[in-house]
């Protein structure tokens, strides 16, 4: 276990350590993060990182393989453009959580603010609480599962991402529609819940949303939808 106490600096050293492919299997502990930005970004190997406090912007950005846990809240863009690995936020996440993430799993045990999963490109996002407006905006692929409610304009201009929401959806965005929940979707929901360690929620309570695919080919008659 290597400890970085950010009260004494060391952000550069932490990130440099995570950029060493040789850190596979190593464990890192980050003390006094105090909302520092760019914590544990660009990790390249399967290390375990425990952040003991609140993280600022872009925590775990572009993560590859690492397992990163924030024992607090996370600022804007946690796990942005993540490629693989696992990021868990024990508290709440600010806007753009998991933005453009290509792979891996982001779990937010609190709630996530606006634009959660914006332009999602293949990752899984599980939010124990609720998500803010414009979540999954232009989401291309991957899955967003929300155990609470979703704000306005969920899935606006969505492509092929799959959205599951257990609570109320304040409004759907352009080209996002509710879809039938079939057995394969129940299995998918169960898998996502399991990956997040959530065992007190029933898959059957979720509703599914996705693309109506009416914006896939430009049509002037749709001009009010854009």
């Amino acid at each position, binding site marked *: 276990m290597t400890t970085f106490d950010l009260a004494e600096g060391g*952000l*550069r050293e932490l*990130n*440099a350590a995570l*950029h060493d492919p040789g850190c596979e299997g190593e464990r890192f502990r980050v003390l006094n993060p105090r909302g520092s*930005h*760019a914590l544990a*970004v*660009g990790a*390249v190997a399967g290390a375990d990182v425990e952040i003991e406090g609140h993280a*600022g*912007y*872009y925590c775990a*950005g*572009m993560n*590859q393989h690492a397992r990163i846990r924030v024992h607090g809240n996370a600022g*804007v*863009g946690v796990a*942005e*453009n993540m*490629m693989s690995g696992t990021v868990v936020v024990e508290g709440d996440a600010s*806007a*753009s959580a998991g*933005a*453009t993430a*290509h792979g891996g799993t982001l779990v937010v045990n609190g709630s996530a603010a606006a*634009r959660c999963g*914006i*332009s999602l*490109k*293949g990752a899984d996002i599980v939010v124990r609480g609720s998500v803010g407006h414009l979540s999954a*905006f*232009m989401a*291309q*692929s991957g899955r967003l599962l929300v155990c609470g409610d979703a704000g306005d304009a969920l899935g606006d*201009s969505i*492509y*092929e991402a799959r959205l599951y929401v257990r609570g109320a959806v304040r409004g759907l965005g352009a080209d996002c529609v509710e879809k039938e929940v079939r057995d394969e979707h129940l299995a998918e929901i169960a898998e996502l819940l399991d990956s997040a360690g959530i065992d007190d929620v029933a898959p059957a309570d979720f509703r599914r949303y996705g693309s109506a695919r009416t*914006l*896939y*080919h*430009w049509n*002037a*008659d749709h001009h009010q939808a854009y």
Partner: protein
Amino acid sequence: MRESATFDRDTIAEIQRAAREGIYDIRGGGAKRRVPHFDDLLFLGASMSRYPLEGYREACATDVALGTRFAEKPLHLDIPITIAGMSFGALSANAKEALGRGASDCGTSTTTGDGGMTPEERQSSKTLVYQLLPSRYGMNPDDLRRADAIEIVVGQGAKPGGGGMLLGQKISDRVAEMRDLPAGIDQRSACRHPDWTGPDDLEIKIGELREITDWQKPIFVKVGASRPYYDVALAVKSGADVVVLDGMQGGTAATQDVFIEHVGIPILAAIPLAVEALQELRMHREVQLVVSGGIRSGADVAKALALGADAVSIGIGALIALGDNAPELDEQYRALGSAAGFYDDWHEGRDPAGISTQDPELASRLDPEAAGRRLANYLRTMTLEAQTLARACGKSHVHNLEPEDLVALTIEASAMARVPLAGTSWIPGT
């Protein structure tokens, strides 16, 4: 018969087209309207009070370093002419490879675009700038580290404030895979970044990118020319190493004609405002300024540098050098309802030159080696032209050109470029 100045033939034809098709005109390229430009400036040359340099004997250097402010590995280019960002998707893989070959041959850089980095492009480009765009198509940390510099795209001159649209006919299986989209659908690119808004956030974003790349890569910020004084100042405040400023004549792969022609300002008007911002911050030459949008010749290069730019970037000119709008293809352009010299339906993917297409048969027509040689010839010619003009002004480096070497032919150009109207000492507005 008297033609209306207001409803001229072009206007009437556009109204008729709109009534027929019910959709705005989408096209490639940049603004076609006449705007004040480098043609409206002249060099004064040497005279009694200034010595020229001998054209074939005395050296006139052209090298430039980009990214010297914070990056551990700034770019060192042999010439101050770089290749602007153009995507694989908008362009064929052969075209991207040709751009890399031509640029590398002349010791300069090329740039990815909204679609990620292809292996051909990386391999053929000695120095490659990797764009971070709002869509983040193809963005990944491995390519980020493989790049020589990172360019955060806030906007482009053809469409400041606009996103993008790559029509389905150009979304081949390979393009779709790189962008993680279904093949054959119209691909929309967002106009705002997904995880930052405004300069305060951008500063933090730049910090993240520096951490991910271990502070090695120069970070460029590209803006469309609209409010360059403020945008350049804010880019500097945000921590940019280099600011790329793209005027309204800068090209796009596909945008609404109304956007291209009616948003943004000419690069001539933008450069002095950008330089003013840098000088006030004492960052001129510390943060390098790269300008683009309508750069065609060595004269344009020299004039841009004289106004205070550190380098220029070319897009449309580079495509023409590769073979775009070649006269020998006139018959094929006419079959598409256009003609050589006029073809701008780059978004349709039917380019007979094999450049703005993903059709395998069409793309195979472009030989990347031969096209790369043509681009290298063009870059060398521009460099020689710029050197010729710099020597005539007595400069041993093209960066020694200065506004004092210039005069303007029109009142508008004089006011915008802030150099005197020729034959006078008058600069309107000063």
